């Protein structure tokens, strides 16, 4: 029996969406504030899910675009005063950079672990450079880059074209949830189109896709740029949400964490990485609060156990389990 998992995913989202929208009525302000972060990180998780899970491009340094987006938003929002164009810039700059980098990598036929290292290295380069840009000589417009301390006092997102009306945190929550859902359904749509299907076919068998006559490089570049745009969007909104951004976003630890979200949730799904990001962050927060066990030890053991026991990730595992149960029920009905 074939269950249509796409439909299951859509129905789940249909049930979850009203709940997400109703949440601010029931919980305290601080929870709404935290949930906003989860929504933004979910967008980041989806950006890697698209590039890696669907496109087969292991972009280890996906956080590079997150950081670029964050810094672009910070610099643009403070200089221009308008936050709508700052968000747009955060996306555009990330996408432009991804286009350049992608051209370099895909036309140079860099792949696999070497591509992972290249992207991670670029992220580290940016981190190191920004880290050293302290002092007053490093300013863009009126914004000091701030080196190790980063940029603070970043304005929150405001109502479009009226900078005097910044969004309060409940509206920011709704904005983030809305963008997360748009991203989810938008990506669903992309992988339903011809473009998306070819991207997936390249992941499945690059040589065959090439022999059929597709210019593999272009499709890879396309999906890479889309992922970078989403990552930049998440980064820009993150800078607006927290009010500060520092070079840590370019570091190995954050890069590896995003990888973990995606692989724990399941490669080749969108819901999985979202759940992975929310779950891991909630776990870190909870361990930090309760001090039950050292957060590092708990997370480390979790990753090891997952890789050894559930290598495909959470969602694909759940699907196979659910399929087995459904099949059993089906068999019983027939007998």
């Amino acid at each position, binding site marked *: 029996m074939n269950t249509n998992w796409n439909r299951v995913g859509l129905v789940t989202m249909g049930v979850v969406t009203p709940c997400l929208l109703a949440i601010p009525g029931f919980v305290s302000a601080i929870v709404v504030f935290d949930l906003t972060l989860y929504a933004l990180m979910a967008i980041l998780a989806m950006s890697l899910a698209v590039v890696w899970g669907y496109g087969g491009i292991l972009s280890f340094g996906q956080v590079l675009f997150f950081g670029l987006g964050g810094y672009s938003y910070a610099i643009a929002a403070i200089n221009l005063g308008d936050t709508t164009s700052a968000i747009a810039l955060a996306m555009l700059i990330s996408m432009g950079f991804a286009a350049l980098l992608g051209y370099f990598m895909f036309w140079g036929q860099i792949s696999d672990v070497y591509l992972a290292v*290249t992207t991670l290295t670029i992220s*580290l380069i940016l981190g190191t450079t920004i880290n050293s840009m302290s002092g007053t000589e490093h300013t863009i417009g009126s914004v000091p880059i701030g080196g190790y301390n980063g940029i603070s006092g970043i304005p929150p997102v405001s109502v479009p074209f009226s900078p005097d009306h910044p969004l309060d945190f409940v509206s920011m929550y709704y904005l983030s949830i809305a963008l997360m859902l748009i991203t989810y359904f938008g990506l669903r749509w992309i992988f339903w189109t011809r473009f998306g299907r070819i991207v997936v076919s390249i992941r499945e068998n690059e040589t065959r896709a090439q022999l059929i006559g597709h210019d593999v490089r272009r499709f890879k570049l396309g999906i890479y740029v889309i992922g970078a745009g989403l990552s930049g969007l998440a980064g820009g909104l993150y800078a607006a949400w927290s009010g500060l951004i520092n070079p840590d976003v370019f570091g190995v630890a954050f890069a590896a964490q995003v*990888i*973990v979200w995606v692989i724990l949730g399941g490669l080749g799904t969108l819901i999985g990485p979202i759940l992975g990001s929310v779950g891991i962050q909630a776990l870190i927060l909870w361990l930090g609060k309760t001090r039950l066990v050292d957060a590092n*030890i708990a997370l480390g053991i979790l990753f090891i156990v*997952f890789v050894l026991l559930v290598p495909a990730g959470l969602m694909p595992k759940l699907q196979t389990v659910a399929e087995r149960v459904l099949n059993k029920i089906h068999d019983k009905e027939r007998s």
Partner: protein
Amino acid sequence: MDVFAVLIIQSLYAVASLALISVGLALIFGMLRIINFAHGEFLMLGGFAFVIAVSSGVNIWVAMFLVAPAIVGSIGYVVERLVIRHLYGRRVIETVLATWGISLVLIGITSSAVGYFQRGVTPPFGSVRIGAYSEGGYTFFVIAVAIAIFAGLYGFMRFTLAGLITRGTMQQPDMASALGVSKTRVNTLTFVAGAALAGFAGAVMAPITGVVPTSGAAYIAKSFITVIIGGAAPITGTISAATLLGMTSYFTTLFTRPVIGEVVLLATAIVVLRFLPTGITGRFFRRGM
């Protein structure tokens, strides 16, 4: 003349330190196809084993040459038996993820055991005068150690029966098994050797850098990049990559600032990968080991 002597020694030191911190990782990646993200923590643990042994009265050379490699080697043994042996033949990214988990566990255990304090040992040997300049005697020691390690490793691989068996097992595991070699045992011993080398390198670097539970992070990116740039052959690859990256970053630092040196190191790595997508030994020195 003195200036040149100093320049040569310092640039050799840059290469030697890069090669030292990478050799354990290179061995494990080259032989087992495992990217060990806990490598930085192995270095850190080697540093701690050394510093704690010295401060509790053990002779500094005993601590460096015996205690640190022995302790980290044993940790490597436990890690290999518990986790790594399930990873052979799996996708590279899975090895990265699992070993990253190991690294988190090791950081967690170390920081709850010793706390977040910087520990250190004063470098022995004092300083050496070269004309108008003075250079730490320990710098010469690091260079000598690096040369000895690589010569020893080469000699082992090239001229001993155990080295021959190791190489054979890596090239044709099934054939080696058919000839009665225990694959599992060779894999375990290789991993333990890589861990012990990392522990030793950590001890050698500890007097210069000091050591904290999080100092592994400073090593992992550099050593990881060195190993990937080097390519599949652990010995030749590490030496050539460390030479290229160490020299470029040292001379850039000399004429500009340390940060730019660091950036140029990483940029060089990217350019190399662009033109040699399988690392230096994927194209040159193909008969190297």
